[in-house]
């Protein structure tokens, strides 16, 4: 995914400031110090080569770091961190660079520490159902290595071909199967993590739990603010014998939303439960020819997995519920090829958006499932208000929205409207009792909305937690948790208990 950063459309910088303002380090001193601990081919300082690292998947924000370190051993990670700590230089950890929230956006006075070359699968154990991998191992590579044992690694973010386990740990990545199989936090058992001062900590273990506080819970999803992970033990699960997918079409989004609630209320936890609106189905159909019904206002994809008997039973129950909820058409995949075709369209949503528009902006709010239809209708109104098209794909089973706002970054007004559209979606997510990010992280992208979701005291506690791991505040500063000063300056208000500041104003 790094090559997308090289796509030349000129740098666009959203206004943000690094919070821990550091005095500009003496660059030659820094580079000389890093050269002492890293081989020449593990250190990038050339301005042209640094450009490949100036952004992650959030291409709207670009910065050039002073240097990029590409350690190949844990000892090198320790030395890089110690060196930067001694010089007071910020460090931005980076995985595969596929993150969508700017978590790996470089610090202009800092070093990017890439874990890409720590890419060894240390062990895969069938009976223990565990694998030990280095952070640079790609998500899909873990499942591929486990496949001969009939096992796989369950979290499957849509970037799984490229994204790495280290990045998944940083972001607590999800995927289409997390309703049934959990997020990264449910599937990572242990990490080995190096602190900013170069100390190695074992967090979690191969045993089912560990003594003391659950440091693993705060480490997963910490967006590179607490430490640099050098090894990860993941849980592997037996690959289900059978998986089958139901495709249901609905004449209106409300019935589709109701069907989602009905399935869950009936005691079914599908392996996947996705919704796409008409804009999205039309866009992908043009692209991958998945055979989606184009006249439907919304479609649902419901997957059952398990033994042949379980799947038959679950498909029959889901089918009855979908019919009762008013589905205009219900198709069940007859074979693996058809199941994959059903999913091909869903998985092509992002590239399809990329084909339709010079740029798209992917949002990530999560709302209670029962509010799905309200949210869709509100976003349709916002689409008209901002004059921008929006394709809607949802992890409907867990209420996680991925609206894709189509815009053109060469047109400053279009970019501005896209950002305002995105902010309104996030604010409505909070007001509906949800959250600004379900799986992509806060990074830089949603840092101002953190001021709305959390009160000042809560943000203060986050800073205290950060300081417990990184007292110097040098790891990925300015990301994930806004300073109280920034929130005050933005004039953002915390939406307490789901109440908007002016509840009487129409928002739909």
């Amino acid at each position: 995914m790094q090559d997308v950063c090289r796509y030349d459309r000129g740098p666009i910088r959203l206004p943000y400031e690094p919070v821990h303002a550091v005095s500009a380090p003496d660059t030659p001193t820094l580079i000389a110090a890093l050269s002492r601990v890293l081989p020449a081919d593990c250190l990038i300082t050339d301005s042209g080569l640094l450009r490949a690292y100036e952004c992650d998947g959030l291409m709207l924000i670009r910065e050039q770091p002073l240097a990029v370190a590409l350690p190949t051993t844990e000892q090198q990670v320790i030395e890089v961190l110690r060196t930067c700590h001694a010089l007071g230089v910020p460090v931005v950890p980076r995985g595969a660079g596929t993150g969508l929230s700017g978590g790996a956006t470089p610090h202009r006075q800092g070093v990017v520490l890439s874990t890409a070359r720590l890419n060894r699968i240390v062990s895969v154990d069938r009976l223990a159902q565990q694998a030990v991998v280095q952070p640079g191992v790609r998500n899909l590579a873990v499942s591929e290595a486990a496949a001969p044992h009939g096992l796989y690694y369950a979290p499957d973010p849509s970037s799984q071909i490229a994204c790495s386990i280290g990045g998944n740990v940083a972001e607590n990545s999800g995927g289409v199967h997390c309703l049934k199989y959990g997020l990264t936090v449910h599937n990572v058992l242990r990490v080995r993590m190096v602190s900013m001062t170069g100390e190695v900590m074992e967090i979690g273990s191969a045993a089912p739990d560990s003594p003391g506080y659950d440091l693993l819970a705060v480490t997963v999803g910490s967006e590179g603010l607490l430490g640099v992970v050098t090894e990860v033990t993941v849980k592997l699960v037996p690959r289900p014998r059978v998986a089958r997918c139901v495709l249901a079409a609905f004449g209106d989004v409300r019935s589709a939303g109701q069907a989602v609630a009905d399935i869950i209320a009936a005691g079914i936890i599908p392996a996947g439960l996705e919704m796409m609106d008409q804009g999205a189905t039309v866009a992908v159909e043009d692209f991958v020819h998945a055979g989606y019904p184009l006249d439907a206002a919304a479609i649902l994809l419901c997957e059952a997995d398990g033994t042949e008997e379980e799947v038959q039973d679950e498909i029959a129950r889901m089918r009855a519920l979908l019919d009762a909820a008013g589905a205009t058409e219900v198709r069940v995949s007859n074979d693996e090829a058809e199941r994959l075709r059903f999913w091909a369209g869903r998985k092509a949503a992002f590239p399809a958006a990329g084909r339709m528009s010079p740029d798209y902006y992917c949002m990530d709010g999560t709302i209670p499932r029962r509010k799905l239809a309200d949210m869709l209708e509100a976003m349709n109104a916002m689409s008209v208000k901002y004059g921008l098209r929006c394709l809607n794909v949802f992890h409907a089973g867990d209420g996680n929205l991925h609206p894709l706002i189509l815009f053109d970054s060469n047109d400053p007004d279009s970019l501005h409207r896209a950002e305002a559209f995105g902010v309104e979606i996030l604010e409505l997510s909070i007001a509906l009792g949800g959250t600004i990010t379900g799986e992509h992280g806060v990074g830089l992208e949603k840092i101002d909305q953190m001021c709305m979701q959390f009160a000042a005291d809560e943000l203060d506690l986050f800073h205290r937690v950060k300081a417990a791991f990184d007292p110097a505040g040098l790891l990925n500063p300015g990301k994930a948790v806004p300073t109280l000063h920034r929130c005050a300056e933005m004039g953002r208000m915390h939406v307490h208990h789901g109440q908007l500041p002016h509840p009487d104003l129409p928002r739909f």
Partner: protein
Amino acid sequence: MTTPLISALREQVLDAAAQGRALRPHGSGSKDFLGLHLAGSPLDMRGAQGVIAYEPSELYLTAHAGTRLADIEALLACNGQMLAFEPPHFGAHATLGGALASGLSGPRRIASGSLRDFVLGVTVMDGQGRVLRFGGQVMKNVAGFDVSRLIAGSFGTLCLILDVTLKVLPRPLAQQTHVLALDETAALQRMREWGAQPLPVSATCWHDGLLSVRLSGARPALEAAARLIGGEVLGDAAADAFWQDVREHRHAFFAGAAPLWRIALPPLAPHLPLDGDRLIEWNGMQRWLRSDADADALRHVVSAMGGHSTLFRGGRPFDRELDVFEPLAPEVMAVHRRLKLAFDPSGVFSPGRLYADL
């Protein structure tokens, strides 16, 4: 929680902080036996009880910390749902707050996950008397550090737990328990082989030559798995009673007088070379040992196998002065101390419950 109640709690916390006193938040006291020291003035957290929000189709439940676990489970059962981690109550009046603070999980943990896996959100009061809310009621939420799960198993040492939101799950359509006569080594081997296959095993327990295996799921899936598992099928009432007894430590094994150790081990750990009666759960990953073995020697054996041990019940007084929980590596302990200060700068909450200097 009502404003007067919050104010009263805040006043107690701030007074204790100002006077350098300690407080010990508690529910029914059902888990008071667990931990190193019970220090500080008792602070009853049962002032607020009851379910705040429950949406069966949203798979979550929010309740005040003082709510009885039994009441929550009864409400869920009415809607065909459950707390899938099967928290041990250890008393009829065990509370939700106590379940979160102790972080304990029961037999279904191997299939569904542990208590911390089901925590979606909390409201707490920190050592500065501030009411803080983390997480929420949705399944996916990565805004900010996952503080809610950090509270799980913190034994009241970080903050007061005011309310808790947990993910709930549908009850299985059917369950069936099989009993096989196997020695310990054969039982360990069998459980692991089952675990690596897509079988609906939801609990395992070996004791005294008998391996009990619970299957949960759709009836056809159970029938297919039953053929592979074999053994004698236990009647439904007897099976329910058996698993309830294992979960609540009412099984005959737990009646002994010797100190009770809980030992958590990696999946492939072999037979424990320690004297004493044992009961094995979680496919061999949770082992209960009744043993007078020297604590240091026991810890040494267990940590060499990659596990950790807790002196769960009993123990001689001088053992109690040792750590009840496995000692932490110095760099990890340093983070614990700083986290404790982050939440509780004056050291008000339950000092010494987890570790002597925390």
